[in-house]
């Protein structure tokens, strides 16, 4: 008796890559803007980054319908939080909320590979990286999505984080300046675009620091 298999899947992978880097007083969150399905391109101009709170931005690759639903759920939860607490959610709080929200659907997961970036209550950059069911960790940098395997080793080389097992605990944030970090991100995407067919078109970069939010955009190869 062979097992019967479904003749359709509720999921699709729209591809794309997301990266975030935490600095001493800034955070860079970036994602390419290509949305694909199979070997086709759906659009060259789709944003995978969502502002969840004043100091929390989430970039997600994977199945964009699930990503959109996840973004809406988190935004609504943030509204409720603001009504109840009269203030914005901190980035670590949002990180926990995201984890709980993902695990809530442990048995029919959001097909979303998330990277949450922002500033913590001390103004230091923080980056949290997730799997599809909510396992998360605060790190100094992270990449998710189809180009992650190409980018992560490069970031490891450039930014190697101290082990979280070390005592005394060392700061995971990179000593790089904001401008250097933004440049590094652009380099990452330029490289990933070369070999990953699902990454390209352009990269949307958000830079969060004490002065507020800045947007940058850089064109990538369209092939």
């Amino acid at each position, binding site marked *: 008796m062979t097992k019967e298999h479904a003749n359709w899947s509720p999921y699709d992978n729209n591809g794309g890559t997301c990266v975030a880097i935490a600095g001493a007083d800034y955070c860079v969150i970036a994602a390419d803007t290509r949305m694909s399905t199979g070997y086709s391109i759906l659009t060259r101009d789709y944003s995978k980054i969502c502002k969840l709170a004043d100091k929390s931005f989430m970039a997600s690759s994977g199945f964009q319908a699930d990503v959109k639903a996840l973004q*809406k759920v988190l935004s*609504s939860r943030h*509204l*409720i939080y603001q*009504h109840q607490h009269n203030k914005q959610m901190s980035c670590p709080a949002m990180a926990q909320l995201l984890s709980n929200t993902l695990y809530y659907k442990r048995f029919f997961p959001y097909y979303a590979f998330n990277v949450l970036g922002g500033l913590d209550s001390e103004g230091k950059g923080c980056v949290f990286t997730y799997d599809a069911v909510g396992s998360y960790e605060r790190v100094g940098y992270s990449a998710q999505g189809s180009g992650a395997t190409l980018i992560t080793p490069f970031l490891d080389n450039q930014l190697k984080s101290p082990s979280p097992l070390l005592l005394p605990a060392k700061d995971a944030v990179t000593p790089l300046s904001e401008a250097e970090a933004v440049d590094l991100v652009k380099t990452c995407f330029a490289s990933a675009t070369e070999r990953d067919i699902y990454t390209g078109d352009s990269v949307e970069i958000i830079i969060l620091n004490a002065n507020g939010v800045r947007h940058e955009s850089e064109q990538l190869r369209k092939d």
Partner: protein
Amino acid sequence: MFRNQYDTDVTTWSPAGRLFQVEYAMEAVKQGSAAIGLRSKTHAVLACVNKANSELSSHQRKIFKVDDHIGVAIAGLTADGRVLSRYMRSECINYGYTYEAPLPVGRLVVQLADKAQVCTQRSWKRPYGVGLLVAGLDESGAHLYYNCPSGNYFEYQAFAIGSRSQAAKTYLERKFESFPGSSRDDLIKDALFAIRETLQGEKLTSSVCTVAVVGVGEAFNILDQATVQALINEFEISGEEAPATASVAEEGAGDAAADQGGAAAEEEVAPMDI
């Protein structure tokens, strides 16, 4: 209003066709401290009197932000008001989630009214003891509604509820024709004047009142004390020093002892019909 044999249950009609429990709930609104609202074509202002129980305690919050485009001021049982505000916020969030658009104020007040009506027709419930002044903005401009415990709601150019609100209403009735064209600042000024009327000689300072505004290009926000005080000073309306009249019943005391005779027993017409 006198106690009688038809006022025990909300589900009992009186021979005159009145539901006394609902009317008693509306009495609770009259005992709460004053809240007023007024609107122009583009802005709506809510203001309320904030009396603390004692010098040691904080003021009760009577104005709540429901969404960027809607806010509410309450008079009566503040706890009921808080619960209804939570319901309104939840409705706005759910509507925004489904339609990616702000919930039209008119829709919200109907839902609120229907929710209040349910409590007038269940033997195991009691009516909400709070009146709500809902100020909001939609595509057709600024709106002000009054929702009462009976489940009725009305749209107003300006209105006042709570204790000594008649004084404010008199002031508003004199001025309301100019409101549609008023500027935002004039509207706030009129709100402060109306609040002053309810204070009956007591000095108007920003520590006894709260003001909130919503309008075209301005999300609902509660003005901070310093701003309100500056406006009061600017309009030079703080009035004379006079000993505060201490007999006003605080909002929290609005429970079933409705026959304390606080409000004069007037016409025989059921208040819900007004």
